[in-house]
């Protein structure tokens, strides 16, 4: 079956072409075309995975272009990592295809949406089976294009247009790093093949500084794609796209491509302590940075977006701590629970018609299924014991600790506390309390939307058990071909992780849940002393002035850094280019004399330079 792996990306591609040409006539049926294509992809991918479990890596390639002695090849490869990614991508894509049928119902460009989804899925699947850097780069750009088209899907909204542009250009900035790193590797190694690059790293053809330089340059590409600091600003803006897109592209798959790239090139990174440290520090910083911003956002999708940035930071931290297994494990569980959270958020937005959490509330009663599923996702991401996020995050903590990153470990723990807090702040504000929205007939979403969420919820719970210290480290053993040695982690670590996440939830409950609960509690026990009430007030103040204030200050600080320093530099560059452009067009005044003068001045300058520097005088 593995030799047929190349066929997996072709089904969505076929769906793309079909819908592009005949979509207008097919209308609603477009959804079935897309679903069928991705479902077949999923089936084939599963078969490939099953085949790979018992077998070994399969690789097929052909010479595509020969320049001198250098040969560029195209082909595909089925490694443990690739096969695993194929299944995750095709599965999430299928579920999102299904969900979107309900969510996008009645949209004028329904079929176009499915066509773009097909294009994206094709590119993403193509990306994960590429056996060399060049091919990876091409698909890497293609997923960028798919993302651009889908963010800008509501192109009549100014914000959506701006966001699409921003996403494309910001990620391109990272891609320049990737590109340069790739070229440098090619010039040193003479090949784009992953296997050749690893060989060169091993036998020392690649000098140590070069390993570090190329690894960091390629990491810059990953930073752009995976929304790591400082190139993350496009990701929250990308939420202008339809919610299913946010779930598929900006949570589960494309943004994880950066993590995947670093994992795929892991032997390169392992050879350089500096590169690993860079990855770890950027990841750790992003994790806490984004989590702190998520604490104060009021747009449901933006909270989730910053959360995604933060979780990707975790994965980078894992990679930087030398554990690609932990990163891929978290990538997997995150794909499931974050997709679930986004789809649930979409279900809420679909029902209420707003994204502002201040205008929601009390939806638990109206949308019990969505609320329950969201709760599962929130519990999983918060790292509550026995759910998938607990195990994968624990693996990351362990990796950071065992690799001697004490500071980063504690940063990750604090970020985990933030995570639990903002997720449940979201939960209580949206589903708990009284209704604050004006929408009249709020009701549960149709089955076509809840069913995919249900599947994801099951996976959000179960996916943790593929790799646990209790039942066996199946994923790790398999990804490393049996060579996975689970390091004995201190047992207090799991307890700390559990306590921190529960503490975060508890705090959120106190601040956002308890207020309503307390009122009930008070009205039933009216004769309670004044003291208790005062005490309660005191606690609120306490939280506001300690945790709340500090967190607020930190997040505000980061927000301003984000707003003025990062965006300032970006706008400075744009302004310079714009000014130069204006100057250039003003020079172009239509006067032939000016044109002639420019030529003569140019010539005179060249001659003068020649005279002074050429050594002829």
């Amino acid at each position: 079956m593995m030799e047929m792996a190349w066929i997996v990306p072709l089904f969505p591609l076929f769906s793309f072409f079909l819908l592009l040409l005949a979509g207008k006539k097919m209308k609603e049926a477009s959804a079935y075309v897309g679903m069928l294509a991705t479902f077949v992809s999923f089936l084939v991918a599963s078969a490939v995975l099953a085949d790979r479990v018992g077998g070994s890596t399969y690789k097929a390639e052909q010479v595509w272009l020969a320049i001198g002695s250098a040969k560029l090849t195209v082909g595909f490869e089925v490694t443990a990592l690739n096969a695993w990614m194929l299944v995750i991508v095709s599965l999430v894509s299928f579920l999102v295809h299904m969900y979107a049928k309900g969510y996008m119902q009645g949209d004028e460009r329904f079929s176009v949406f499915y066509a773009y989804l097909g294009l994206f899925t094709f590119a993403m699947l193509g990306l994960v089976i590429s056996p060399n850097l060049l091919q990876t780069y091409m698909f890497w750009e293609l997923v960028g294009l798919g993302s651009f088209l889908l963010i800008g899907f509501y192109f009549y909204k100014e914000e959506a247009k701006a966001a699409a542009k921003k996403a494309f250009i910001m990620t391109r900035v990272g891609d320049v790093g990737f590109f340069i790193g790739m070229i440098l590797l090619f010039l040193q190694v003479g090949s784009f093949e992953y296997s050749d690059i690893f060989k060169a790293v091993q036998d020392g053809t690649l000098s140590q500084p070069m390993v570090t330089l190329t690894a960091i340059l390629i990491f810059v590409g990953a930073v752009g794609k995976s929304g790591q600091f400082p190139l993350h600003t496009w990701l929250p803006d990308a939420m202008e796209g339809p919610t299913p897109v946010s779930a598929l592209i900006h949570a589960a798959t494309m943004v994880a491509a950066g993590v995947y790239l670093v994992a795929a090139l892991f032997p390169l990174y392992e050879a350089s302590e500096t590169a690993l440290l860079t990855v770890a520090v950027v990841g750790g910083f992003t994790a806490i940075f984004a989590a702190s911003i998520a604490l104060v956002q009021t747009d449901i999708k933006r909270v989730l977006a910053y959360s995604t940035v933060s979780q990707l930071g975790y994965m980078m931290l894992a990679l930087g701590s030398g554990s690609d297994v932990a990163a891929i494990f978290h990538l997997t569980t995150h794909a499931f629970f974050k997709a679930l959270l986004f789809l649930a958020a979409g279900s809420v937005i679909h029902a209420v018609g707003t994204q502002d959490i201040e205008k929601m509330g009390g939806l638990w009663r109206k949308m019990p299924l969505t609320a329950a599923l969201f709760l599962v996702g929130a519990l999983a991401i918060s790292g509550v014991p026995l759910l998938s996020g607990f195990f994968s995050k624990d693996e990351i903590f362990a990796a950071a600790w065992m690799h001697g990153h004490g500071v980063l470990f504690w940063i990750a723990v604090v970020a985990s506390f933030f995570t639990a807090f903002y997720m449940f702040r979201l939960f209580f504000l949206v589903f708990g309390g009284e209704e604050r929205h004006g929408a009249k007939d709020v009701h549960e979403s149709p089955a076509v939307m809840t069913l995919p969420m249900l599947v994801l919820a099951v996976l959000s719970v179960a996916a943790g058990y593929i790799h646990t210290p209790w039942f066996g480290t199946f994923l790790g053993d398999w990804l490393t071909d049996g060579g996975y040695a689970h390091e004995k982690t201190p047992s207090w670590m799991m307890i700390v992780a559990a306590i921190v996440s529960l503490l975060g939830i508890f705090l959120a409950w106190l601040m956002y849940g308890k207020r309503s609960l307390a009122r009930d509690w008070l009205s039933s026990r009216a004769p309670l002393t004044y003291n208790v009430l005062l005490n309660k007030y005191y606690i609120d103040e306490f939280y506001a002035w300690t945790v709340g204030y500090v967190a607020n200050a930190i997040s505000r600080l980061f927000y301003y850094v984000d707003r003025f320093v990062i965006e300032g530099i970006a706008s400075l560059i744009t302004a310079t280019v714009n000014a130069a452009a204006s100057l250039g067009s003003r020079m172009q005044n239509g006067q032939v004399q000016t044109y002639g003068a420019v030529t003569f001045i140019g010539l005179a300058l060249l001659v003068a330079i020649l005279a002074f520097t050429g050594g002829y005088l």
Partner: protein
Amino acid sequence: MSMHTLLRYEWGVMTPEFIIIGTALILSLVDLLMPDDKDRRPLAWIAFVGVAIAFVATIGLIPAETTSILHDTFRLDAFGKAFKLLLLAGGALSLLLAFDYRPKEGLKHRGEFSYLMLCALLGAMIVTSSGDLITLFVGLELLSISSYILVGLRKTSVQANEAALKYVINGGISTAMTLFGMSYIFGLTGTTNIKEIAVEAQKLTDGEYQYILALAFLLLFVGLAFKISTVPFHMWTPDVYQGAPTPVTAFLSVVSKTAGFAIVLRLLITIFAAAPARGKDTSSMLLSMQDYIAFLAGATMIVGNIVALKQRSMKRLLAYSSIAHAGYVLVGFAAMSWVMIDSIWFYLLAYLLMNFGAFAILQRMSDEADSDDISRFAGLYQRSPLLAVAMGVFLLSLAGIPGTAGFIAKWNIFLGALMTEPGHYVLAAVMIATTVISYVYYFGIFVQIFFRPAAETSSLRLPIGLTLIVVVCALGTLLFGVVPGLAYHFLGQFEHFGDFLQ
């Protein structure tokens, strides 16, 4: 020269030129004798057939050995063959554009359109094959003068007249500079034959002479910069491109530019590669001038791409884009790697395909309203999805996105710049940075096509000539983007143009 020697020359190597000249003569006679009220559009088809036959004849000449006739003034070598194929293909596409060119006020001198274009094409072909400064100059002027008239062919349009006048004046300056440079070379070497010049130039070891030779290099390069529209001789481009009829604009941006690069390569490499230079690098004059070319290439890429950002007129935008692309090609020349000519040829091929495709669609979009504002493209996707996708392909290729010929072309130039020892890292960095800038304006058009509502909802019909161009160019752009090996396999038979200096 006796009659006997004249007849002994292998005239066969000039077959393509003879075919073009014959077709042009026949067309001018037909145009003269045809009644005034007859439609002259079919003449373009005759011209097209002539060019097609010349193309086939050139392919037939590929196996021919490197030949030099007429006292070494005309030489047919691999370089000439390869570039003639590009020129003829470009000429054929220009004629197809001309066939479907329908300006609002009508076109009175349609007959001239065809045979002037053939004359210009003939000039360009002579240029690629000339072995002597005199023939080279005559070919260059034939190309230039025909182009001047072509630009002003819409006699009633003020814009066209202005463009033609500007083109003539700037062309005059260019010719003066080029001739000035040539006169220095003649003065130093005492001959006009390029090969003999190269031999004589090797003997110039005196510093004073070398200085004059270097001056001649700069004069030639700046003078010829007019033809390839690079800094500092690029200013005329947007004005002329905008005023000229669209088929002529396409002709100038592709055929004329290709011919310009052919002269630059043939003249500068042959003469200056062997000439010694003073200073730190005594090996060759050409290498010592490398930094100047690199500097001008960088300036060209920056100017072209940055000023393009401000354009609303599609023709002006494509004019700046053509300046930028000339800059990328110059990077290939400045790097002077051993794949230089291969990569430049491939770039010009990719450029021919994507540019003609874009111009064909532009012509269709602008003719109907006599406006080439970028907003003409708004909502093209709704009006004609297939046309929008084709335009998308051309834009992606111009921007250099993987999967298109434009990417491979840029990639080769880029690799060439890094392959040499020492690598041209700064130049490569400028190339990448300006490419990123170019995304902004190319994707601006993209946004118009796909994301803006259409001003008109009428569906678009593409006339036969334009359809042919769009289909051929789109397929070519994708084909060479996916399997560039085809073009390289074809180039393989020229063996890296090894006979260039023989």
